[in-house]
């Protein structure tokens, strides 16, 4: 079909103008596009940024001595920890499992003796890391307590090379310890997925439902012109959303961009395309707007649950990881984390870039294949 690939710039421009005009008139959608990213970021950002205190803490005391007691008192005073009592190791495990305590502190045998000799005894802290943001404040306090509590009793300690105690933190349930910074890549990916797939998914079904598709079909416009014409406004919207999110996270939460900003935008563009292609395919498959919404949600839920946005990716079972690996959001999260937090470059990111390219190509092929050029 040669016609499939004929492309008239003026017709394409016509479609583009029409889409922009319609978008401009649709106030609610427009408000959503700008409002959702900001509101979500504020909601998530602030909700998770809270610095919770008075977290229930159990103590496993193998060596009750004055140092341990002093340390516990200091913990209590910091207001981060509420000591619920002394237990044995097995009870402590159960308490942590049931979520009755957030921390278990274990003072090993010989704690007092080793400390007095300056041998830096280990202090084991098991933390419920399902909410990593919540424990970060408490953990930093713990580390700090080591020096401040024992300094008066052990002169010269403040300058001692090895710290007085060896704080060993076990992050239970979330070994990766996703941090506050991870919320920005997450929100970015989730919002792009949601708004772009949803809106392009509706783009064609809306025409079909309103009957305007018949008029559009009766014109010589080709599928490629229509598809690209309909996609461009959403690419711009996606870039706008990302800019909003980056600006908000920079100025409100003070999260810096470590890596290259242009590279970030190129990656965002790729991710936007992957989502738009999928949206277009959905919109060709769906008979009406309701079906299109349902398909979007069908795609959206695994994207949220299995991409590593909600749960740590490495902690998921193999089958879930396999599904997650097929989703663009999974790779996008890793790419954006890499650029934002670690300053990774193209070479390091390539293992996550080609899956995105592949997804985009497959979705584009599917979109063109399923685009119906007739009303049947």
């Amino acid at each position: 079909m040669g016609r499939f690939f004929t492309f008239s710039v003026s017709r394409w421009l016509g479609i583009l103008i029409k889409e922009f005009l319609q978008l401009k008139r649709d106030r609610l959608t427009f408000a959503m596009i700008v409002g959702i990213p900001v509101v979500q970021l504020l909601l998530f950002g602030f909700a998770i940024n809270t610095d919770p205190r008075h977290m229930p803490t159990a103590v496993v005391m193998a060596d009750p001595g004055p140092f341990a007691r002093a340390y516990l008192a200091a913990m209590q005073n910091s207001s981060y920890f509420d000591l619920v009592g002394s237990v044995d190791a097995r009870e402590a495990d159960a308490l942590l499992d049931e979520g009755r305590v957030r921390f278990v502190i274990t003072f090993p045998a010989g704690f007092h003796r080793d400390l007095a000799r300056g041998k830096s005894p280990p202090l084991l802290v098991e933390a419920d890391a399902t909410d990593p943001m919540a424990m970060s404040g408490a953990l930093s306090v713990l580390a700090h307590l080591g020096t401040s509590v024992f300094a008066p009793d052990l002169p010269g300690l403040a300058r001692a090379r090895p710290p007085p105690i060896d704080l060993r933190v076990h992050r239970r349930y979330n070994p990766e310890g996703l941090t506050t910074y991870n919320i920005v890549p997450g929100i970015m990916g989730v919002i792009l997925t949601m708004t772009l797939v949803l809106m392009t998914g509706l783009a064609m079904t809306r025409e079909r439902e309103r009957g305007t598709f018949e008029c559009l079909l009766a014109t010589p416009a080709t599928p490629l012109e229509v598809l690209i014409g309909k996609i461009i406004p959403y690419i711009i919207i996606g870039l706008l959303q990302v800019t909003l999110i980056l600006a908000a996270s920079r100025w409100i939460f003070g999260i810096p961009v470590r890596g290259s900003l242009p590279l970030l935008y190129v990656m965002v563009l790729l991710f936007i395309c992957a989502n738009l292609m999928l949206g277009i395919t959905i919109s060709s498959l769906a008979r009406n707007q309701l079906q299109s919404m349902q398909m979007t949600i069908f795609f959206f839920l695994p994207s949220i649950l299995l991409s590593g946005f909600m749960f740590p990716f490495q902690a998921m079972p193999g089958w879930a990881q396999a599904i997650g690996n097929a989703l663009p959001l999974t790779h996008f999260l890793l790419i954006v984390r890499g650029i934002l937090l670690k300053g990774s470059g193209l070479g390091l990111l390539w293992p996550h870039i080609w899956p995105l390219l592949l997804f985009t190509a497959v979705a584009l092929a599917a979109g063109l294949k399923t685009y119906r050029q007739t009303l049947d």
Partner: protein
Amino acid sequence: MAAPLVIDVSGLNKHFGHRHVVKNLALQVREGEIFGFLGPNGSGKTTSIRMLCGLLTPDSGQGACLGLDVLKDSARIKSQVGYMTQRFSLWDDLSIEENLDFIARMFSVAHRRQAVARTLEELGLAARRRQLAGTLSGGWKQRLALASCLLHRPKLLLLDEPTAGVDPQARRDFWEEIHRLSAAGITVLVSTHYMDEAERCHRLAWLSAGQLLACGTAEEIIDGLCLNTWEISARQDDGIARHALPDFADKLRQLPSVDMVASFGATLHVSGRNAEVLKTGLEAVLAGSALQMRPVPPSLEDAFIRLMQGSPLHAPQGGGD
């Protein structure tokens, strides 16, 4: 009549699921002709028109539209056809001007701005150009839709009930325009439910349950049905007899020789195929009443009502092929 055929299709079939909606449709329309497409609701007019301009793929059949294959060349057909949909299908959330501009761009109209401005002038909508199309009244929507499908000066117009809901004055203007276009060599295929519009067409086709039951000029169709029509009316201002007409119509319908009875104001049109039997039957019933009868030439409406009731000659076939 040596004008070339603009539409020449045969054996077109279309199924929706198990329903056979268009059955073996064969149509020939010549250049410059105004061709009326008639038939009851759901008879397949819209489906047929959509197949002609490539919006629906026929299940089987072949033919040409503007010399191009309807199955393979729909893209090139579209650029030369002006198709006005039955349901308003321009964009409600674009203004009148934006709609016209969009259509003009889609058809790559030369001197687009001037063409749009001229169309707005001709429509008398220049002052309301910024009004959203969705806020127009029904009749004005129809007029806008017609104007938009004329923008690219198509060679063939496919109009699906273009005057539904349009006021009489605008309807008259519309048909004047159609005849002007036809004189300029543009071919028009128009579907309608109005008899007065059917009479303005050069040739007509009658579609029923997806089958073409009659095709030709109005006279050919009427003659082809071999109708004998009598007009029955009350003798001079006989009020009582006039009130009795509806009851009388029921009585006439019982007669075996009567195919059709239709009320036209204060008169009844009674038609049947066998002239002699009909005449004697009517005379027998009328004898002694205050009613009179006289033979009249059957009108197009008589013919179509007759067709719509389904003659035994063309007993509707069951579904399937």
